[in-house]
């Protein structure tokens, strides 16, 4: 038998024995391996969630910047007046308590309509 065929024979026999031992792995070890795999997969899912939360504040800042630009560039006001109003609007938007005011939009619309009548009356 040549050296190479002896190598091949040994390799083949070793592989067969190895495969047999893998197939007959006990239930306890199989269970431990499954648990280890699940922990690794949790890592992938949690890592993705972490990455999303890392970008969330950046998205919030970008949104605030867009709002500031839109508010700051609108209207026919003078530059100083526009800046003051823009800052005031950002304060309102940033203040969580002010959001309650938005729920009463219909009330304020009505108030605007009736106020001139009241002044004239």
């Amino acid at each position, binding site marked *: 038998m040549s050296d190479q065929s002896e190598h091949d024979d040994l390799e083949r026999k*070793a592989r067969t024995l190895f495969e047999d031992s893998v197939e007959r792995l006990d239930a306890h070890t199989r269970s431990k391996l499954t648990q280890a795999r699940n922990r690794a997969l949790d890592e992938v899912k949690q890592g993705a969630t972490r990455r999303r939360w890392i970008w969330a504040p950046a998205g919030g800042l970008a949104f605030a910047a867009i709002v500031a630009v839109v508010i700051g560039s609108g209207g026919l006001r003078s530059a100083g007046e526009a800046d003051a109003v823009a800052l005031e609007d950002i304060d309102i938007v940033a203040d969580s308590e002010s959001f309650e005011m938005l729920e009463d939009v219909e009330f304020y619309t009505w108030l605007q309509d009736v106020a001139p009548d009241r002044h004239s009356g």
Partner: protein
Amino acid sequence: MPASASLPAFFGPLATSRWDDGARTSVEEPILEQARALDRFLASIEKRAFRMARIALRHDDDALDSVQDAMLQLARRYGRRPSEEWRPLFYRILQNRIRDCQRRRRVQARIMAWLPGLKLQDDAAGDEYAAVPDRAPLPPEQLAVDQAMQALERSLAELPGRQQEAFMLRAFEGMDVAQTAAAMGCSEGSVKTHYSRAVHTLREQLGVAW
């Protein structure tokens, strides 16, 4: 067009996950698909990886720890890499874990040599499965297979580390020379040398009849 209508397009995945639940599903789908692919990959190799670690370390718990560490490292650091790269990367991490464990043992052995009065905590804890009764007697042919595997394991355990790695990756895992070189972090020429020496030594130790 209302200003909000253009926001999802501007913010990309972040905005679509906020504004549109349907789009949110499409954002998460690649992550779930990646997790499913990694699950399939790890399930396909975990038992073989454990047996290889067990042969190298000759200890069940150490082998399990090494495989678990390798799985976690692969998921954390390389989970987003193409799946074709996972196998050599996984085995590279596993071989590093095995070497770390062997180094720790050598250090512990040196310390124990200096302090012979101490006993390692693991040894003192004992084997929790020692009291579990043995399996039913094996049929003769299975007994012969078991004995042949035990002889192979003993011979493999006596090989130098790199020869052992080269033989297991090539013969057991079926990797070619290039894949083995990637997993071992060495040249293809080194793989051939380690593998050839391993086969010669095993042949001598196991005998022609094996």
